[in-house]
C-alpha cells in the first residue's frame, strides 16, 4: 500500500536529518583567540595542558552554539593585557574597568563576575585587620587592579610595609604558604577555592569590589563582544546555565556534575525528539487508521446484522413457504409460512430432520416417499405445478413447488425449496371449469335451439312462396302454421334465456321467510294448472325459517310443483306431497308426485338446459335447469328418486345457505 511506504520515507528522513545538519554546520567555525591567565577557577591551565575553568565552560558553550573555535593564548595577566593591545588575542577575560584600560579596550554591558580583593595569610598568622600589615611583606600580582588598590589603601592608612609583585595568583599563594611573604592579595574568585589547597586563610580584609568583564581590543571585534554579552546575560539570568553551574562547581568544589551538553548529544536529542515526534505522528496515524478500520468493521458488522434481520423479516413475511436442504436432505432453514402450512409450531421441529420424508409421501397411503428425499434439483431447478404435501397431522394439501440448487463456487451445497398451498386455486379452477362447461353448454344449446326454428321459418317461407304460386290453399295454411310454431318457440326460448341469465346476476337482499310461506306462494302461482288437472296437494305441518331471496326460493317449489302437475300422465288421482325431513346434518326438502315418473335411463338428462323428455309437452325444458341453478346458488344438492315409468317421482334438495346462513353464503 502506498501510504505505508510514505510513512516509512518520512521516518527515514527524520532519522537522517540531524546528521545532514551537522555536516552543513561544520563548514569553517570562526576562530577566536582568548588571552588566558591563571585565574583559578575561572580559567587555568590544568596539569594536562588543557585550559579549564568556568570561563572555559562558558566560552565552550558559546562556541558550540555560535560555531566558534576558541583558542587560548596562555600567559600571565600582564602578558594578556599586552596581547590584547597588540591584537594577538581577540578577547581578554576578567578585565576590571579602569579609564586607562578603557582607552584601548571595549567593555560589554554585562560583567563576568563581581569580585573583590582579599588578603590571605597562613592559617597560623594572627593578621586579622588591615592595621596589622605594618612592616609586613605583602605579595600582589603585577598590574592587578586589586593589588594596585591595596597598595593605595595601605598608603592611605599610612602603614609602612613592603610589597612584592608576582606574575600570578598561584605564585602569591605559594609564596605566602612558603612564608616568603607574610600575606598576599588575590582576587576573591581565586582565593576562596584555592585557600585550602595552600593552607591559607582570609584575613577578613576584603576590599574594592568591582566587576570584571570580557573585553576586546578597542574598535575591533565589536560583533564578537555583542555576541559574548548576549550569552553572558542569558547565562547569568538562568540558574541552570552552564556558566553558573560551572562557577559553583569550580568555586566551591561542589561535587555536583556540571551538565555539559555536547553538540552531538543535542543533535541526537533533536533527532530523538524528531524521531519520537515522527513515531508519535506514526502512532497517531496508525491509531487513526486502526480507529477508522474499526469503524468500518463495526459498520460492516452492523450492516451484516441489519441485512440478516432484513433477510429474516423477508423470509418470515413472505406468503410463500421456504425451506432449505443440505446434500443429505436435512432441513437447514424454514420460514414462518412453511411452519404454518405444514402444521408445525417451532423451527426446531423441522431443522436438521429429513424433511422430504415427512412432507413428500406416497399420494395413495401417505407412506414416506424415499425417492425424492435427497436428490438435489438440477441446474435450472425443478418446478412441480401440482403435488401433494403432507402436514404433521397426516393430512395433505395440493401445492406448487419450486426447487433450486444452492451453489457456492460451482459446488452444490444443497437446495432451497419454495411452495404455495394451491387448494384454493384448485377449487377456483374447478369452479371455473364448471362455469366454463356450463357456458359452453349454454351457448351450444342456445345456438342449436335458436337455430332450429330459424331453419323452419326460412324453409317454410320458401315453400310458402311456391305454394302461393301454385295456389295450393291447404299447403299454404300448413306452411304458415309451422312458421308460427317456430316463432312461438323462439319467443319462449328468448324469454326463458332472459330469466336464466337474470338468475345469475340479480341478487335480492336476504330475508327470513318460512317454508310454509314459500310453498303457499308457489302453490298460488301454479293454482291454474293444478285445478285444471284436479291435483291434490298435501303440505307437511312442520315449519322452518329460511334466509334468502324470497322470490327465488319460491321458484324452486313453483317449478317442481308445475313439473309434477305437467307429467301426471294417465293418473286418475293425481297427488303431490310437499315436505321436509332431516338426513344427517341436513334439512332435505322434497316434492313427491304419483305421476308418470321418469325412466331411470333418462334421469341424468332432465336437469340439462332446454332438455325435454317429451317433445310434445309444453314449455321450453328450462324448469328443472332453473331449479338446479337456484339450489346450486344455495350450495345445495338436487336429486331425483323415481322407480321408473308410471311409478311417480320425488325431487329432493338441500339448501344449506338458506337453512344455515352462518355456514353458507
Amino acid at each position, binding site marked *: 500500500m502506498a501510504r505505508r511506504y510514505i510513512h516509512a520515507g518520512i521516518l527515514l528522513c527524520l532519522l537522517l536529518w540531524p546528521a545532514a545538519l551537522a555536516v552543513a554546520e561544520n563548514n569553517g567555525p570562526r576562530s577566536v583567540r582568548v588571552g588566558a591567565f591563571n585565574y583559578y577557577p575561572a580559567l587555568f591551565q590544568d596539569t594536562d595542558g588543557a585550559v579549564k575553568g568556568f570561563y572555559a565552560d562558558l566560552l565552550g558553550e558559546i562556541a558550540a552554539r555560535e560555531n566558534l573555535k576558541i583558542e587560548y593564548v596562555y600567559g600571565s595577566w600582564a602578558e594578556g593585557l599586552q596581547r590584547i593591545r597588540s591584537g594577538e588575542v581577540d578577547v581578554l577575560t576578567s578585565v576590571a574597568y579602569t579609564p586607562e584600560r578603557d582607552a584601548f579596550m571595549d567593555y560589554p554591558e554585562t560583567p563576568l563576575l563581581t569580585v573583590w580583593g582579599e588578603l590571605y595569610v597562613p592559617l597560623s598568622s594572627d593578621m586579622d585587620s588591615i592595621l596589622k600589615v605594618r612592616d609586613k611583606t605583602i605579595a600582589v600580582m603585577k598590574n592587578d587592579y586589586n593589588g594596585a588598590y591595596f597598595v593605595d589603601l595601605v598608603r592611605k592608612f599610612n602603614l609602612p610595609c613592603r610589597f612584592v609583585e608576582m606574575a600570578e595568583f598561584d605564585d602569591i599563594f605559594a609564596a605566602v604558604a612558603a612564608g616568603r611573604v607574610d600575606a598576599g592579595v588575590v582576587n576573591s574568585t581565586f582565593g576562596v577555592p584555592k585557600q585550602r589547597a595552600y593552607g591559607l586563610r582570609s584575613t577578613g580584609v576584603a576590599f574594592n569590589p568591582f566587576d570584571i568583564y570580557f573585553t576586546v581590543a578597542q574598535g575591533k571585534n565589536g560583533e564578537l563582544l555583542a555576541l559574548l554579552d548576549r550569552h553572558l546575560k542569558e547565562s547569568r539570568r538562568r540558574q541552570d546555565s552552564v556558566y553558573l553551574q560551572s562557577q559553583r562547581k569550580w568555586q566551591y568544589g561542589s561535587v555536583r556534575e556540571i551538565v555539559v551538553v555536547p553538540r552531538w548529544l543535542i543533535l541526537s536529542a533533536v533527532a530523538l525528539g524528531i524521531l519520537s515526534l515522527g513515531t508519535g505522528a506514526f502512532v497517531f496515524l496508525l491509531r487513526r487508521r486502526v480507529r477508522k478500520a474499526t469503524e468500518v468493521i463495526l459498520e460492516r458488522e452492523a450492516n451484516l446484522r441489519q441485512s440478516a434481520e432484513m433477510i429474516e423479516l423477508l423470509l418470515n413475511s413472505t406468503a410463500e413457504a421456504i425451506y432449505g436442504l443440505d446434500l443429505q436432505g436435512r432441513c437447514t432453514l424454514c420460514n414462518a409460512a412453511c411452519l404454518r402450512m405444514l402444521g408445525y409450531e417451532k423451527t426446531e421441529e423441522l431443522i436438521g430432520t429429513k424433511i422430504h420424508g415427512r412432507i413428500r409421501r406416497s399420494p395413495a397411503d401417505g407412506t414416506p416417499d424415499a425417492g425424492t428425499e435427497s436428490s438435489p434439483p438440477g441446474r435450472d431447478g425443478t418446478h412441480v405445478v401440482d403435488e401433494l404435501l403432507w402436514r404433521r397431522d397426516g393430512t395433505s394439501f395440493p401445492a406448487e413447488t419450486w426447487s433450486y440448487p444452492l451453489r457456492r463456487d460451482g459446488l452444490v451445497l444443497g437446495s432451497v425449496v419454495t411452495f404455495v398451498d394451491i387448494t384454493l386455486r384448485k377449487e377456483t379452477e374447478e369452479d371455473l371449469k364448471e362455469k366454463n362447461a356450463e357456458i359452453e353448454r349454454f351457448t*351450444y344449446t342456445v*345456438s*342449436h*335451439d335458436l*337455430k*332450429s*326454428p*330459424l*331453419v*323452419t321459418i*326460412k*324453409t*317454410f*317461407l*320458401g*315453400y310458402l312462396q311456391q305454394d302461393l304460386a301454385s295456389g295450393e290453399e291447404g299447403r299454404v295454411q*300448413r306452411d304458415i302454421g*309451422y312458421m308460427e*310454431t*317456430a316463432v312461438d318457440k323462439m319467443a319462449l326460448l328468448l324469454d326463458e334465456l332472459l330469466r336464466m341469465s337474470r338468475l345469475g346476476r340479480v341478487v335480492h337482499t336476504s330475508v327470513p321467510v318460512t317454508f310454509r310461506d314459500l310453498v303457499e306462494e308457489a302453490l298460488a302461482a301454479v293454482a291454474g294448472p293444478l285445478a285444471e288437472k284436479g291435483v291434490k296437494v298435501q303440505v307437511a305441518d312442520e315449519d322452518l325459517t329460511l334466509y334468502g331471496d324470497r322470490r327465488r326460493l319460491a321458484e324452486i317449489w313453483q317449478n317442481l310443483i308445475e313439473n309434477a302437475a305437467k307429467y301426471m300422465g294417465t293418473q286418475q288421482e293425481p297427488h303431490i306431497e310437499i315436505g321436509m325431513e332431516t338426513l344427517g346434518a341436513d334439512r332435505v326438502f322434497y316434492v313427491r308426485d304419483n305421476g308418470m315418473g321418469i*325412466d331411470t*335411463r*333418462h334421469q341424468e*338428462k332432465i336437469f340439462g338446459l332446454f*332438455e*325435454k*323428455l*317429451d*317433445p*310434445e309437452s309444453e314449455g321450453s325444458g328450462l324448469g328443472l335447469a332453473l331449479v338446479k341453478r337456484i339450489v346450486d346458488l344455495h350450495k345445495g344438492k338436487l336429486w331425483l328418486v323415481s322407480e321408473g315409468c308410471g311409478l311417480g317421482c320425488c325431487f329432493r334438495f338441500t339448501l344449506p345457505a338458506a337453512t344455515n346462513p352462518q355456514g353458507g353464503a
Partner: protein
Amino acid sequence: MQGEPIVVLLAEDDPAHAEIVRRNLEGSRIANRLEHVSDGQAALDYLYRKNGFSNPSRSPRPGLILLDLRMPKVDGLEVLKIIKADPAFVRIPVVVLTTSAVETDIARAYDCHANSYLVKPLDFSKFSELMETFGYYWMIWNQNPG
C-alpha cells in the same frame, strides 16, 4: 338404379324439420319410403322393434338412417353409438342431419362412425338442393350393403 325403394328412417324431434325432409324427398323423383320417429328412444325402439314397432311390415329395416343430434330422451349420438356397436345395424349408413355446425359435434359424430354429417342450411333453396343431392347420392349412386 335399384327397383326396390329404400326405406329411410328419419329421427327428428322437430315436426317442422321432419316435414321439410319429407317434402324434399317427395319432391325429388327418387322413389323411397320415409319412416319418421320423433326422439332417440323411438329410433332405437323402431330398430329393435319394441314398444309399438313390433310389426315388421310397419317398421321395415331401413336402408339409410337420417339422424338428428339433439333429441329428447336419448340423443342422436347415443343412438349412433348403439347402432354402430350392433353388428345387426352397423352397415346401415347413418347420415347426421342437424342444425349444429359445432366442431365438437362433428368430431364426435365421426368418432361414433357416422357415415356423413350434414348441417341444415338456413336457406330454403339450399336445403332443397342438399336434400336432392343427398337423395341422388345415397339412393342412386351409393352402393349400399345388402
